[in-house]
């Protein structure tokens, strides 16, 4: 394989910008399709690239993407995350069309995409999955016996599901079969498959995942773990590396398990093996994500690597294999996902126009975003505005610095979770690393109060407001130097 001249980015938002940077670093021209609605406002976010105005829904239309890639003389497509990133058919279609799919082979995607198959493979590699069983070939009595053996509560999951979709929790035996029936029909509806399985429901676990990278020729290395336990509505909002509870021995055991799994499915490139960790630090295989993940930057900061660049180099056949013993963590990194949402209102998305946007400029702080002042966040798009990754020599300093970073990240015009994220890291349990997936619910009294600014009262804000002039469409930063105060005695001139 020779060097790519042009690569199509089959994604939008911050991950498109991330891939754009990696391509530019490698002196490859990024070809970026942008839907018509956001073409104008996105235009100047990607200088030195080929921009294409395209129709809505393009990122889910594999055939069209390949057509565009060919028309624009691209040798490869980077899918980012979401959309078609874990679609084996698309990977295969690329292959058949002579376009390199920057990701693992279609076959690996397929094997890991089927959660039940992935469990079986994991078990064969000596990695215990969360205790559970397949429903295939079992009668009602056998199912009940197995469920009792696993112990209730249990989760019923769709084999082709993910992200909580098509998942049902069962507390009592008498609800089991009704839920199995519903799960099966939901799975058929969403994923065109009746395959479902049962998994033990581990109460308030931690989510810890291992980053792997498989070099050509079947050599997989692990780049430590990411703790992704702080979640809202089954979505991660804070991720860090290293995890406060993983020591060297646990890291090695989890890492080797993840590598063996990747090698078994002939994996290539960047991947993530997710584990559920119980309160006794037992870890269980959950699933493998066969793509670059949102939270990959924390690993990059701690291990001093560029995973997206590696992906592209690997796809060109140019990557230099790094031996496991050369991969050492250094320092601590925490990523915060900044969403346009209202934490006070059940984290409802808060779309709209960003009127003022200033990223913090602080050493050791990395911001991944593809927005700017005046940018409109559409209601039907992902409400993530940016990711901010804070790096420091140790966890305590990193948390302390992060408070300042969140304070100095300016987003006005839409509601954001910035202040909420700061409350999370101010909590003593977070500081101690004593967290589980129920963190936000458990400490809601602490997290959702404290709207008052300790330094400024509402009265002072009102007084200040009287001086801030409205001067047109854009948000001006001017204040009357010599204010003419019409002796403010009334409403009318």
């Amino acid at each position, binding site marked *: 394989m020779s060097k790519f001249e042009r690569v199509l980015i089959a994604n939008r938002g911050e991950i498109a910008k991330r891939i754009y940077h990696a391509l530019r670093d490698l002196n490859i021209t990024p070809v970026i399709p942008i839907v018509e609605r956001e073409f104008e406002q996105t235009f100047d976010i990607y200088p030195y690239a080929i921009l294409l105005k395209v129709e809505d829904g393009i990122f889910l239309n594999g055939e069209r993407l390949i057509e565009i890639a060919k028309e624009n003389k691209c040798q490869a497509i980077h899918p980012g995350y979401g959309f078609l990133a874990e679609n084996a058919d698309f990977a295969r279609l690329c292959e058949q069309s002579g376009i390199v799919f920057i990701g693992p082979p279609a076959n690996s995607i397929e094997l890991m995409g089927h959660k039940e198959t992935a469990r079986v493979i994991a078990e064969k590699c000596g990695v215990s999955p969360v205790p559970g069983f397949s429903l295939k070939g079992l009668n009602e009595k056998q199912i009940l016996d197995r469920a009792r053996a696993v112990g209730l509560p249990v989760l019923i999951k769709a084999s082709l599901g993910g992200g909580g979709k098509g998942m049902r929790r069962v507390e009592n035996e008498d609800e089991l079969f009704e839920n199995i029936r519903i799960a099966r029909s939901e799975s058929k509806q969403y994923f065109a498959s009746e395959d479902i399985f049962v998994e033990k429901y581990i109460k308030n676990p931690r989510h810890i995942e291992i980053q792997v990278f498989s070099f050509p020729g079947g050599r997989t290395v692990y780049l430590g773990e990411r703790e992704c336990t702080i979640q809202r509505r089954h979505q991660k909002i804070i991720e860090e590396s290293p995890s406060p509870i993983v020591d060297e021995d646990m890291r090695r055991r989890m890492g080797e398990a993840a590598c063996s799994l990747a090698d078994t499915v002939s994996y290539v490139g960047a991947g993530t093996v997710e584990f559920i960790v119980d309160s006794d630090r037992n870890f269980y295989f959950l699933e493998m994500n066969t793509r670059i993940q949102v939270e990959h930057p924390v690993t990059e900061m701690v291990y001093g690597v560029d995973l997206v660049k590696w992906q592209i180099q690997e796809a060109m056949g140019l990557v230099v294999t790094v031996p496991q013993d050369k991969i050492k963590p250094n320092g601590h990194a925490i990523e915060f996902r900044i969403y346009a949402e209202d934490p006070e209102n059940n984290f409802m998305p808060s779309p709209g*126009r960003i*009127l*003022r946007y*200033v990223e913090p400029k602080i050493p050791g702080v990395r911001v991944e975003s593809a927005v700017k002042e005046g940018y409109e966040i559409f209601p039907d798009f992902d409400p993530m505005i940016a990711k901010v990754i804070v790096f420091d020599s140790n966890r305590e300093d990193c948390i302390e610095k992060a408070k300042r970073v*969140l*304070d*100095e990240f*300016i*987003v*006005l*015009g839409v509601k*954001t979770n*910035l*202040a909420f994220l*700061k409350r999370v890291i101010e909590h003593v349990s977070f500081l101690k690393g004593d967290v589980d997936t129920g963190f936000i619910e458990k400490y809601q009294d602490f997290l959702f109060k404290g*709207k008052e*600014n300790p*330094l*400024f*009262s*509402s*009265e*002072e*804000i*009102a*007084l*200040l*407001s*009287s*001086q*801030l002039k*409205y001067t047109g469409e854009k*948000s001006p*930063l*001017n*204040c009357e*130097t010599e*204010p003419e*105060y019409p002796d*403010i*005695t*009334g*409403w*009318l001139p």
Partner: protein
Amino acid sequence: MAKYIVNGREITLEKVNRKEGVLKGFANEREIEIEVVEQNGMVFVKKRGVLIPVFFAYDNEQNLHIHLNGSVFMVHKKTIEEEAGKGEIGNSGGRIEPPMPGKILKVFVKEGSEVEENQVLVLMESMKLQVEVKAPFKGVIKKLNINEGQTVGAGEVMVEIEKSV
């Protein structure tokens, strides 16, 4: 005098004046002051000697969004119309509050009167300024809580109108 809603809290601001960077005023009848500095197009508030940058923007609804020291405030300056109750009408009823505290000079309607939109209901005076309070929509006066000559405070409901369908 003006009314500001700061993160949902109403604050009456009076006697604002600024001299050499010191901004003074009465907020909810209590005197306060802050130090404001403008430099290179940026506005800062000086607190205990520290310069804190003020980031702000107005949206299309004339709401002022301010970022100060890690907190975001949404500020809305009430307009005369809103003060007259227009901003707070429901579908069926309008509770009319005075645009400012003051004295009722004249009441033009009675309970049961039919009124047109923008018909003058009350004439009042505050700080030597006469203000007409108008009906926000066509309707019937359901309740009249004021008499000529009396004074009314902020937030007191003077008149309740039921909207005609």
